[in-house]
């Protein structure tokens, strides 16, 4: 016979029962932890900055002073607004195109085979390579910048959406078909809702790429924008301005992501 000994392992604590006492502390905990994370980061930054030249890594206080300076003359605010507009336009367009593209590619073999070589080729080519072409075709205005951000967004949303389509529970496809749904109705009433979590993840990741690309895009003829600010400051070796730009990008990204998450949680709750 087999020798199975029953060991009375202490039960794993899955969702620990909150004691009535600790409940208030617990509510404040996420906030506290975030504060610790941020303060820890700042301290680390200050320490590291003391080991190297301010030309490469300005100290916290230098950067703060530069930020005040840039806020004082309105540069930072204008830059944030200009870049935000471009990001939102390009990212929004990318998501709007990427989702249906991903759904069609995920669902229809022929569409996938036709477009796959393009997607799988172009998504490896950095937008910086297309800056000149974008300027030539779309001019030095907003359009070329938005197009570059669109370019960087659309692949990611598409790819994630395709993954989502392929993860749809086949039972639900069958159910829909035998309730009378045609191909297009299956797309809109089963595949689209099932794919929402993947699309949201794709959109969130693509938002990151939009931020990376806005900096490349704003190298050309942007008067305002965080990318333009960073490039100019880089040319001047005003590293503390570069850092103000970087931090503004980071915070703006954090904010956008937070808004996106809250909005999807509110609006798309039933699909998540």
């Amino acid at each position, binding site marked *: 016979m087999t020798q199975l000994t029953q060991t009375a392992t202490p039960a794993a604590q899955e969702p620990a029962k909150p004691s009535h006492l600790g409940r208030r502390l617990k509510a404040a905990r996420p906030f506290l932890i975030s504060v610790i994370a941020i303060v820890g980061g700042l301290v680390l930054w200050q320490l590291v900055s003391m080991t*190297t030249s301010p030309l490469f890594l300005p100290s916290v206080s230098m950067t703060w002073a530069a930020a005040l300076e840039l806020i004082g003359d309105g540069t930072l605010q204008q830059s944030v607004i200009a870049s935000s507009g471009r990001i939102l336009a390009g990212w929004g367009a990318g998501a709007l195109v990427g989702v249906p593209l991903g759904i069609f590619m995920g669902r229809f073999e022929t569409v996938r085979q036709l477009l796959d070589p393009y997607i799988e080729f172009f998504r490896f080519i950095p937008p910086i390579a297309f800056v000149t072409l974008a300027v*030539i075709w779309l001019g*030095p205005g907003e359009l070329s910048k938005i197009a570059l951000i669109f370019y960087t967004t659309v692949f990611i949303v598409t790819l994630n959406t395709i993954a989502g389509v392929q993860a749809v529970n086949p039972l639900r496809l069958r159910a829909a078909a035998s309730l009378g749904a045609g191909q297009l109705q299956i797309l809109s009433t089963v595949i689209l809702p099932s794919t929402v979590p993947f699309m949201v993840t794709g959109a969130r990741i693509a938002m990151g790429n939009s931020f990376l690309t806005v900096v490349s895009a704003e*190298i050309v003829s942007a008067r305002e924008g965080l990318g333009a600010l960073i490039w100019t400051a*880089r040319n001047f*070796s005003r590293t503390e301005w570069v850092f103000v730009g970087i931090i503004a990008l980071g915070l703006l990204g954090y904010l956008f992501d937070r808004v996106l998450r809250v909005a999807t949680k509110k609006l798309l709750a039933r699909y998540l």
Partner: protein
Amino acid sequence: QGAPVTIGVGADPVFTAFFVAANEKLFAKHGANVAVQSYTDGGEALNALVANQVNLACAGEPTHIVRLSRAELRPLAVTYQSKTYLKLVARKEIASADKIKKFGIVAGSVSEYVTGLTMKKLGIDAAKVEMVRSGPPELPALLARGDIDGYFVWEPWPTLGVQQGGHVLMTCGDVGYTSTLWLSATAGWLATNKEVAGNILKALAEAAEITRKDPPRAAQSVQAVTRIPVPQTLNSLKDMEPVVRDFSDADLKTANAIGEFLLSKQAIKAPVDMGKILQRGFYKG
């Protein structure tokens, strides 16, 4: 031979002397144990110098000046100069520089500086012209599309602008600017290595001599080290004077003028005392 010395330079024909000296082992000939490390541009090379990753680095004046207020750098000599390396290119329809209404500039660079000099020289009202910022590769495209009327920038972009149907109106010499590159060391390193630095300059002077006399031979060296094709280098060499020389009064004046320009752009916070920093008399020729 002494401890190895690393020199940081950009990957560009303007640094030809360094590539020739390295490829033809002229440093060794003058008793210096030198490795040439190439970076994308002079700026990155100078950053490496500030970070003490290299012992010497070569870069242009504005690149130096924005760093001088924060790092103890000691420019030793001029290792290149040109009155024609930057050119003002304009669309065919623009007959003279004062007709330009839209300037393409690379913000924060000498391009912006010489554009300023041009406007001052021609008495153009800054309020009446528009400055369009761009990266250098996009300038010819903007010109071809008609988004800008002209731009004042370094090679090879003027040549490309001409290929796009533009024409050259001026060179930087015309507006009183001689483009130079400086070879610098950190103050600390220099204090104990004056002799090595002198030997290196001698080797570079010999390389400059070769470059001046036999451009194709120099271009071969450039290709050997950086892969820049020979014709490309030859084309660039047309615009430059390979020299190694001490700083002149004119250099000091230009440096101060650029310092003021950078100050006005808030790129630096306080004027730099160029007279104290430039190591005049270090290179004895």
